[in-house]
């Protein structure tokens, strides 16, 4: 039995939440479906952990779906990079779901909650599927599973605020445009190579050489994924979707959805296309790099002027995606390490921050910053969590944010691009401004008259503080995450290890 489970772990990773989803829909009452979904998310996380443990040493697991050999059959391929991402996604689900109960109970009518958790599990399935599969078309399929369920999840914010419907619709249009671009890109690659398996694609593209069809495919995939990961200026769907979705959904999506899209980007850019060709490298350097820097500044500036906390954090996410893309666009080992480690670091930090915002929505009844005056005295634990996670967002030492920034600046200096290094630092100053605006309002301003606010319940505070503790712990002991990230980066770039071995 154990051996059977062990050999089929890659399949279980996706099948578990997929099969659980319809069961969850049939469970009826809210708390029962919540308990079931939570249990499933924990099991899924266990699977991801064991996959990570197996691949951490450098092993690559190749799993043939249904016993059909690749490249004809669908291959699930797990290496340290996607095991790392699988761990982030399933881990965040396992932390967000316990938190979700109180917040969902307040935001969604009881009879709809089982559908909510079903959609949540489907979304998880999609995100895990995208990450684990080694088949390009399969990526598209899972991307659609996760996207469709996300539209539903975002729209379920409508019970709190009707504008969630418009936000979800907007996201639907933009997301579909993105998916279409992506699938056209894959179609072009299929035209040239006649295969959909990623490893096979890489070999055949290399053998086929450079052609304008490959270029077109590259550009279509870049734009398609760019939409999904909210690459500036394709981010317009994100702020509304994040601000109007139910709090638990926002926390989960912010920590995972864009991260998975970044993973797809990394996988296609580096594994499938490679950078032997001038065109691809130039596109990243001339287009993605400036856009990333622009995102860091433009989105941070916009974040400073938001009054809604969730919206502010959403714009901050767009800026953080800028950092992630910047590391990618450096096309160096250290740059990629920064990108990959920031996937984790930002998931932990931003997850915690959005969960804090959810606590405010539930207990203080508002996510407007001006409505949170003096909240530090009424909700000390929640607000303290915001401060610590805020430190991490700024990138102060002994938090995970610092580790990411360290690698990123290091990567810029290695290339001798010190103006870029200064820009990275300058943009994190903007983070100080928007984080500190909240801190100052929460602690130093008198509470509005006649407002009673109670501290968030333990079922919400504990998950929040788990994430906060992680954002400190992995800032103090970054050995595992930096090893995983730098190994994944090495694997992607195929170069010798610069940082890890000495």
């Amino acid at each position, binding site marked *: 039995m154990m051996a059977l489970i062990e050999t089929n772990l890659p399949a279980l990773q996706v099948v578990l939440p997929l099969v659980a989803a319809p069961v969850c829909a049939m469970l009826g009452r809210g708390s029962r479906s919540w308990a079931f979904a939570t249990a499933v998310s924990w099991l899924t996380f266990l699977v991801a952990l064991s996959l990570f443990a197996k691949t951490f040493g450098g092993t690559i697991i190749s799993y043939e779906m249904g016993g059909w050999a690749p490249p004809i059959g669908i291959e699930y391929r797990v290496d340290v990079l996607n095991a790392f991402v699988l761990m982030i996604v399933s881990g965040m689900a396992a932390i967000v779901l316990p938190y979700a109960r109180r917040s969902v109970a307040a935001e969604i009518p009881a009879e709809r909650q089982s559908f909510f958790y079903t959609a949540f599990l489907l979304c998880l399935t999609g995100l895990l599927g995208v990450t684990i599969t080694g088949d390009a078309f399969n990526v598209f399929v899972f991307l659609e599973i996760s996207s469709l369920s996300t539209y539903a999840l975002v729209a379920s914010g409508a019970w709190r605020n009707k504008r969630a419907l418009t936000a979800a619709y907007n996201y639907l249009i933009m997301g579909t445009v993105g998916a279409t671009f992506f699938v056209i890109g894959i179609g072009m690659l299929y035209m040239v190579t006649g295969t959909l398996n990623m490893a096979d694609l890489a070999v055949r593209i290399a053998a086929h050489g450079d052609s304008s069809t490959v270029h077109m495919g590259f550009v279509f995939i870049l734009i398609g994924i760019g939409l999904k990961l909210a690459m500036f200026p394709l981010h317009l769907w994100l702020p509304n979707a994040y601000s109007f979705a139910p709090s638990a959904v926002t926390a989960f999506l912010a920590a995972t959805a864009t991260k998975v899209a970044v993973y797809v980007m990394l996988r296609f850019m580096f594994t499938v296309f490679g950078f032997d060709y001038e065109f691809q490298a130039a596109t990243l350097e001339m287009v993605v790099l400036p856009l990333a820097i622009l995102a860091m500044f433009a989105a941070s500036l916009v974040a400073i002027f938001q009054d809604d906390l969730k919206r502010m954090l959403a714009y901050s996410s767009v800026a953080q995606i800028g950092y992630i893309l910047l590391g990618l666009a450096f096309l160096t080992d250290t740059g990629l390490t920064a990108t990959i480690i920031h996937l984790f670091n930002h998931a932990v930090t931003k997850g915690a921050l959005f969960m804090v915002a959810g606590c405010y929505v539930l207990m203080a009844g508002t996510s407007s910053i001006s409505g949170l005056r003096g909240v530090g005295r009424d909700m000390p634990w929640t607000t303290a969590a915001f401060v610590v996670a805020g430190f991490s967002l700024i990138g102060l*030492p002994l938090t995970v944010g610092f580790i990411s920034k360290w690698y990123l600046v290091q990567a810029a200096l*290695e290339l001798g691009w010190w103006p870029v290094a200064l820009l990275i630092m300058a943009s*994190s*100053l903007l983070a*100080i401004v928007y984080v500190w605006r909240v801190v100052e309002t929460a602690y130093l301003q008198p509470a509005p008259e006649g407002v009673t606010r109670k501290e968030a319940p333990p079922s919400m505070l504990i998950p929040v503080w788990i994430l906060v503790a992680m954002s400190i712990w992995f800032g103090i002991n970054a050995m595992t995450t930096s090893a995983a990230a730098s190994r994944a980066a090495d694997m992607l770039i195929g170069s010798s290890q610069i940082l890890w071995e000495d």
Partner: protein
Amino acid sequence: MTDANILLLAIAIPALTPFVVAALGSRPNLRDGASVIASLATFAAVLTLLDGVIGGARPAITLLEVMPGLVLRFEIEPLGMLFATVASGLWIATAVYSIGYMRGANEKNQTRFYICFAIAIAAALGIAFSGNLFTLFIFYEVLTISTYPLVAHKETPEARKGARIYLAILMTTSILFLLVAVIWTWNIAGTMDFRAGGILEGKIDPAYVPFLLALFAFGIGKAALMPFHRWLPAAMVAPTPVSALLHAVAVVKAGVFTMLKVGTYIFGVGFLGKTGAADWLMWLAAASILIASLVAVTKDDLKARLAYSTVSQLSYITLGVALANQMGVIGGSMHIVMHAMGKITLFMCAGAIYVAAHKTKVSELDGLGRKMPITFICFTLAALSIIGLPPFGGAWSKWYLMLSAAEADQLVIIGVLMVSSLLNVAYLLPIPARAFFAPARGQVAHSLGAAAAPVREGIEEAPLLCLIPICATAIGCLILFFTVGGLYEYLLSIPILPESLP
């Protein structure tokens, strides 16, 4: 107990004091007593270490490795030991003084005050004992953040504004310049350890040295080098004990100490001298000395005048680094001690005047000397020490700085130091002069601390707990003049040249 454990203990006592203080929050006498006891215990631990360091011991301990190359490490060398002794010794004086002041002035949130105060001291000791740039940077940021609530203590709009300027300047400089400098240093030298004679010689292109030095000099915003000095006057909205210990001793001295440490152990004095990379810094420091003194002359607010005086005096120490010879380092280090002793007395006097007479402006002090003779006598003694007249400690540090300037053939700098002394006379001595000799104007002020003060005929001094520390530090200025021999011998042990390889 080994020296390394005592080292940790010296940092742990103030770091753990906040918990005790918080637990005793509802019993003010016990709480304040705990602060004093903690300060005594810390000083005792530091003195034990000092004994060993004079004997040549260099205790060191590595706590943990965050990721490859980023190590949290403490290591004591003479310069850090000196700073630690000054900071922890004067903490005792301030802990006693705070009790009198905070109660006399009826300040709110006293528990928060003592908590943040102790954290700030722990951070200062962490800076003093740090064994590499990374550790130093961590505690540097901890110091910034822990002092923010102290500056914003009164929670009035002015306090919020002052605290915002404080945080903005210190954070901006540290993240934008200092962190980049740290990462750059690591990139070039492959290490961040403080080593005798520096780690950069032979590794960095000499053309870049002035630039890297500029990143450090401006990045260490706590040294208040112009044009990044604005935070210091802004921080004067804090309660006076904060201004006294933190903004005359711990915080600003952490800045100039870092400057000295970087100059001696990262660049190496010899290397700086050889390349002439610090020439511009010398002129900037000289300009900073004169301009800040000139500004101080124009200030009517007593604390603002003392703040600008601090800006000016701090640049003496930066000047000592920039002169890049052994005498400069000795003069600069000595000035840490001399200026600390003098300036803390001046600030505590300013606080005593506020508590007893509720006066904050120089122009309001006419005739007050007859009511508060002890305070103003101590003020005079400390002012004379700051000016640099014998028989007060301040004379010696200026003497060694002049020797250093002579050694570097910078006669203009000698002139600057002399003019600055004259300016010191111009802005400091009128204060006691007016208090003693000008006739009192207007009606008699009512004492705030009357209940606690020894009321004699015509005498309305501050509470006894304020007066004792003032007298102690004022006498300290005198004693330092006569004990300078030992201090000089000690400072000679700061390694200037690289350790010769066996």
